[in-house]
């Protein structure tokens, strides 16, 4: 009975939380399919036969370079993701496996990186990018986001790598497997769930970021989705149809990536390794 109550209360809390988290998204998506008048008349209503409209989508696709923004966002996110995961896993492996001088200092440095928000350094970053002639390039964004994502990713992955049984690595060493191969053929496959988790952590803030695109790459060819949407937000009039449609479209890729990655999350891969 006690157990049952606990289960029910836990689920209630979780359901309420889910509802709170999902409601804004539902509002965005449902209103994106409504006419402008209907959005204002009853924002909470679902699109019905007489309020249904795809005007927002057609406007977004016709007026703006939505495809380009989309590709830009996707490029920045995916390239950053690849860089962060590769470098973070390698750094985490080095930090947790090898005893070398300066290891502690490096570890502390990365920990500080988690605590200090990268936006504090915006001015210097901008100066740096100007000096390197990288403003209005996607490269600038990728570099900044990689730096932003690395510390936490290293921290999480190091925890997981430390849990890989020592015997496994030793067995591989006795087998004559080189350190590089131990990393790619044994360590990486074993921390796949952790890598997927980190990927989600890293990906979402990048996809949603408005700050750095606005400052580093606001130019025509390098706008990301979040920036692109802003052209429908006016000082006096906001084209809600278009804004909501654009946001709806922007949800799709993150959702897709999340679905792909989340399948990795729950798996315990070390089962059967030892004992």
């Amino acid at each position, binding site marked *: 009975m006690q157990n049952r109550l606990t289960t029910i209360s836990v689920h209630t809390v979780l359901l309420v939380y889910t509802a709170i988290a999902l409601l804004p998204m539902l509002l965005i998506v449902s209103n994106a399919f409504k006419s402008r008048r209907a959005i204002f008349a009853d924002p909470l209503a679902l699109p019905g036969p007489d309020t249904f409209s795809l005007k927002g989508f057609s406007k977004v696709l016709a007026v703006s370079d939505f495809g380009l923004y989309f590709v830009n966002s996707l490029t920045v996110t995916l390239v950053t993701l690849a860089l962060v995961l590769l470098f973070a896993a390698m750094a985490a492996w080095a930090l947790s496996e090898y005893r070398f001088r300066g290891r502690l200092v490096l570890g502390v440095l990365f920990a500080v990186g988690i605590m200090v928000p990268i936006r504090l350094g915006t001015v210097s970053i901008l100066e740096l990018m100007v000096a390197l002639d990288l403003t209005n390039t996607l490269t600038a964004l990728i570099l900044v986001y990689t730096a932003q994502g690395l510390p936490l990713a290293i921290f999480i992955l190091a925890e997981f790598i430390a849990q890989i049984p020592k*015997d496994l690595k*030793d*067995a*591989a*060493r006795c*087998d*004559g497997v080189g350190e590089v191969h131990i990393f790619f053929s044994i360590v990486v496959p*074993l921390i796949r769930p952790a890598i997927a988790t980190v990927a989600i952590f890293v990906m979402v803030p990048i996809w949603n970021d408005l700050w750095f695109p606005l400052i580093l790459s606001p130019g025509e060819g390098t706008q990301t989705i979040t920036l692109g949407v802003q052209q429908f937000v006016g000082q006096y009039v906001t084209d809600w149809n278009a804004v909501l449609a654009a946001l709806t479209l922007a949800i799709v890729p993150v959702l897709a990536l999340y679905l792909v990655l989340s399948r990795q999350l729950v798996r315990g891969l070390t089962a*059967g*390794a030892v004992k």
Partner: protein
Amino acid sequence: MPDVRLHNVSKSFGTEDVLKSVSLDIVDGEFAVIVGPSGCGKSTLLRLLAGLEQADAGDIEIGDRRVNDLAPAARRIAMVFQSYALYPHMNVYRNMAFGLKFSGLEHSEIERRVRKAAETLKLDGLLERKPAELSGGQRQRTAIGRAIVREPDVFLFDEPLSNLDAALRVNTRLELAGLHRSLGTTMVYVTHDQVEAMTLADRIIVMNEGRVEQTGTPLELYREPQNLFVAGFIGAPRMNLVTGAAAQEFGAETLGIRPEHLTIAPRAGDWTATVSMVEHLGSDTYVYADAAEAGTLIVRAGGNTSVEPGAAVKLKLDRSAIHRFDAGGTRMT
């Protein structure tokens, strides 16, 4: 000749001296078993041999090569871990073949070796399975297979059977003995199981607190333990160790008597004792008796001994089979 030699090898972790100037000589083709209580440095010794730890001092030689500075792979050894350490994301075949891929062997040769090892170890039908889908014994055999396919000069085993249940342990023990007979390769085997040591070993190395106490064939150790530690460690049930006046009578500080060298005598005996407990094992009966002069003694009696707890008995000892130790615990001749 891949003899394995350790010369004054020391190793410490921080302030803890785990191995204290260990010297060893293992002859080519020998099955050497290292025994000792938990924490005495057996695994550390094995890991030094494998190259997974670096010795602080001393020489390690395999064959004619000093291997102190060689990487594990270059030492031509193969190690089987207590935890098996199978790669969880690879099937049995890949577990065995993985290491070979980096040795420059032809693909066909790798396949031949894996198939052969699988056949020897009865893993034929399981090559596609992941470790998680194997039983304990099958995982164990896969781990051994991974060692065999490397065709090493020396096999190193670290308590390979300790995770198996009793019946499987006996089986695998026999298989290992057979494997050693057919391969003829030098094997260094760590265990703290007496029976494994006595049955498998050509030579037993008894370790205690980072030192080698004695090496010898199982029977040598059993018949002539060089010190109290070995006397107490080898043999089950333990050797009876008697101190005080009863020992001094024989001119020793400590007197050692194996349980089978004590008999329950009907009339005259050396000591009078009261039986406190009787264990019937079928073939043997262990009688625990408290003697006023000698303390609690274990007597190994025949299967149909019929003494009861509480009975007063006379104990007679076989004077030709006693072990005498001096004050320092060393065997007296």
